[in-house]
């Protein structure tokens, strides 16, 4: 094995060592930046410095897709292979790149200087087909030259934002990052000031009566969560922002962080004050490198301006935020898996109960909210609960961000009040279907969602209307398909996603996502076996009923929805299996 010089690692370990295991992901990220991968002696040194058993260091490295335990190419290109990018030609991009690499690889070279990987949704769906070059986002990869791609010269994409409202997105879509000066000029951080002049109970009451529910997909009442944590007697409490956005088709949190990071910081600070927490975390997905840098800079600005830190705005309230990066694991968007990840472990979801409000991060009472949920908080204080309820419907008050991608004229992020029709969003805001094409279906709620078809075009976009229509709002994803799209290919991509992202803890999901993917492969290749629909249904119901966490419980949702809409796609083509068990 080649000699590894551990000297450059020492300052990192001296800095992070005292934190112990919780600093494991930050230490591994730092190590990988230094060495390009995580060599064995480096992993051992990290484990010793942080006092983590070596087998567990290895377990963590091997869990997260963005950590490499073997040397990788100098330039790693991540190509998104999920529905929106798939429809826009991701497979072609993959193929062209592989050919280019072959052409550019010098004979006899041990490993190529460029490596291309197909990965799960990168949250760049409005720029499909998208990819990352060493973490830097590249839009419309099919239109970029190879030289621009590998040199990293391709222009970074700017968000595309529209809608009937611009309450949450007033600073978004302007081709710039809203720094603290611009944010404050527009009234930013005044709601934090206002909050600090009220009692925590008053703020919680406002959030409750505004009817705010979580925007990450589970729609749990935010005020109820806050109240539970505020009521605990614990000296130590945490607030955590879940910015591990990774549901295929979702990019709203990315846009908010990229364009208006201070709004999130303000929301989290108000949350901390309301529940009595002095330490907060923002956990951002590992693929969002640009957004990580933007948020890091914004946190520094906020700290310097006294918006976080000690004695915030002379109120005597103390609160600071630590920014954490994920490392390529969709499951860490599950709240308890996210805690495990911050604690320096594999992202295995925990058994609930106990719930995070009593046993959360480091076993302490914890509020964990999605980015979009938190940016609603300053708005509630600004409009007042009654004013906020003027927006949306009775049961789904407020504004909502929708991520529209796929076969529409204008993919992008749209802010609307709850209750507008799907048709309005599709035709008036997103410009309708591309010329010459008809609407076939839309996937609501991402990979974990369900398909809407023509009869659903006039459904109102609210929690209650979608539930009644057998659809789901999820995290606000709407991926649109025209009449030419092969739904079997779309399902195969979703099946691949879940098989790739299952953590492997509970049996139904660990094996069910794999078996589901295998059957979907047969179906996509027109060689379905008799009984495959029954197999899909048994696997699907078993995952839905018996899985440990939300990933497994929704991993069959889109497939079962497709079986209801298009049973003909699943008809058997063969009479006997081709292989069978050994």
């Amino acid at each position, binding site marked *: 094995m080649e000699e590894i010089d551990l000297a450059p690692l020492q300052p990192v370990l001296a800095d992070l060592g005292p934190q112990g295991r919780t600093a494991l992901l930050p230490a591994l990220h730092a190590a990988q930046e230094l060495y390009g991968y995580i060599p064995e002696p480096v992993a051992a040194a990290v484990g010793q410095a942080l006092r983590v058993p070596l087998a567990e260091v290895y377990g963590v490295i091997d869990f997260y897709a963005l950590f490499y335990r073997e040397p990788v190419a100098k330039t790693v290109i991540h190509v998104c292979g999920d529905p929106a990018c798939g429809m826009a030609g991701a497979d072609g991009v993959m193929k062209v790149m592989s050919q280019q690499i072959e052409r550019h690889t010098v004979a006899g070279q041990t490993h190529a200087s460029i490596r291309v990987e197909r990965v799960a949704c990168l949250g760049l769906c409005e720029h499909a087909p998208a990819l990352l070059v060493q973490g830097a986002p590249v839009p419309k990869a099919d239109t970029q030259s190879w030289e621009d791609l590998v040199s990293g010269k391709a222009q970074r994409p700017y968000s595309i934002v529209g809608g009937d409202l611009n309450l949450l997105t007033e600073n978004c879509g302007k081709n710039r990052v809203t720094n603290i000066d611009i944010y404050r000029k527009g009234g930013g951080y005044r709601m934090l000031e206002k909050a600090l002049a009220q009692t925590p109970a008053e703020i919680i009451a406002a959030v409750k009566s505004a009817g705010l529910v979580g925007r990450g997909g589970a729609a749990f009442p935010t005020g109820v969560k806050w109240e539970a944590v505020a009521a605990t007697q614990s000296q130590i409490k945490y607030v955590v922002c879940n910015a591990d956005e990774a549901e295929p088709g979702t990019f709203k949190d990315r846009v908010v962080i990229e364009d208006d990071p201070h709004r999130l910081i303000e929301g989290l600070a108000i949350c901390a004050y309301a529940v009595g927490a002095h330490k907060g975390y923002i956990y951002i997905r590992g693929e969002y490198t640009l957004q990580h840098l933007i948020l890091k800079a914004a946190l520094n600005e906020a700290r310097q301006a006294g918006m976080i830190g000690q004695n915030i705005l002379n109120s005597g309230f103390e609160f600071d935020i630590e920014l954490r990066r994920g490392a390529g694991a969709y499951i860490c968007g599950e709240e308890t898996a996210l805690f495990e990840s911050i604690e320096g472990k594999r992202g295995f979801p925990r058994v609930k109960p106990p719930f995070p409000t009593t046993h959360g991060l480091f076993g302490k009472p914890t509020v964990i909210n999605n980015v979009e949920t938190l940016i609603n908080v300053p708005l509630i204080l600004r409009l007042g609960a009654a004013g906020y309820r003027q927006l949306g419907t009775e049961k789904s008050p407020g504004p909502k961000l929708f991520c529209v991608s796929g076969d529409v004229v204008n993919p992008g992020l749209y802010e609307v009040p709850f209750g507008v029709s799907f048709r309005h969003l599709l035709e008036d805001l997103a410009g309708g279907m591309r010329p010459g094409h008809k609407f076939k279906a839309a996937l609501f709620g991402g990979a974990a969602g369900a398909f809407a078809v023509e009869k659903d075009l006039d459904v109102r976009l609210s929690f209650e209307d979608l539930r009644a229509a057998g659809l789901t709002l999820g995290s606000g994803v709407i991926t649109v398909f025209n009449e030419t799209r092969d739904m079997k290919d779309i399902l195969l991509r979703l099946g691949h996603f879940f098989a790739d992202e299952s*953590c492997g803890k*509970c049996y139904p999901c660990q094996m069910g996502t794999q078996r589901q993917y295998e059957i979907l492969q047969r179906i996509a290749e027109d060689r379905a076996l008799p009984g495959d629909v029954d197999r899909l249904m048994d696997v699907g119901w078993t995952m839905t009923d018996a899985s440990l966490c939300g990933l497994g419980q929704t991993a069959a949702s889109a497939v079962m929805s497709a079986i209801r809409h298009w049973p003909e796609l699943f008809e058997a083509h063969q009479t006997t299996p081709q292989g069978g068990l050994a």
Partner: protein
Amino acid sequence: MIDSITLTIDGKPVIAAPGTTILKAAASAGIEIPTICYHDYCTANALCRLCVVEVEGSRVLVPSCVAKVSEGMKVSTSTQRVIRSRRTILEMLASTVDLSEAPEIQAYMHEYGAQSERFPEAEQRLSPVLDDNPMYIRDYSKCVLCWRCVQVCAEDAQYTHAINFSGRGFETQISTFFEKPLPETTCVFCGQCVAVCPTNALKPKRQWLLEQGYSPDEIMSLTRTERRRRMRRETAAEQPASGGKS
């Protein structure tokens, strides 16, 4: 403080102490719920999900090995939903790993009418037998990922932390640090992992050699070098200056 809780399991009234799991409460009433990953002396992780039951008012099925009883709870241990999940889990397991030496799981397969060939063309989790030490072998093609070995190696018993996981999802495997042979790890060969393994994926080396058809004499001679080497090492460690005995 309430000292007893009344619930019904399969229509039967059951009285249990607060903090009792549904699994234990059912057992006390003579109702057996199947389990794979559960072990009385290991932390219950609720991961095999074979022990799921239906609890009135719960959207999803509930793992009885960790869910505690509560007053007035109505539990059903063998509804259609429960049976479908158990049967499918067993069928998926049979398509994934070698259950030939897991008689308890085979008995469950029979009981639930699970077909071992339900999933044709299914990828199996195959792995070569790891024979890297004189004490036990690791045949992960038989591993059902119940986590018991990892747990007893760590906080559930030995605090040795020699093993953890590699990969994730279907590709998950039990692994040492960078897949090193066990003698190069913190393993102390206490044997607790072998004792809790439910499928014979972990097996004493001599038992394994016997099963391979070796006679006891052959096994003695096969492992002789290892014993000698160990003796030499130990003597050398005791008397570093003298150079040791032959």
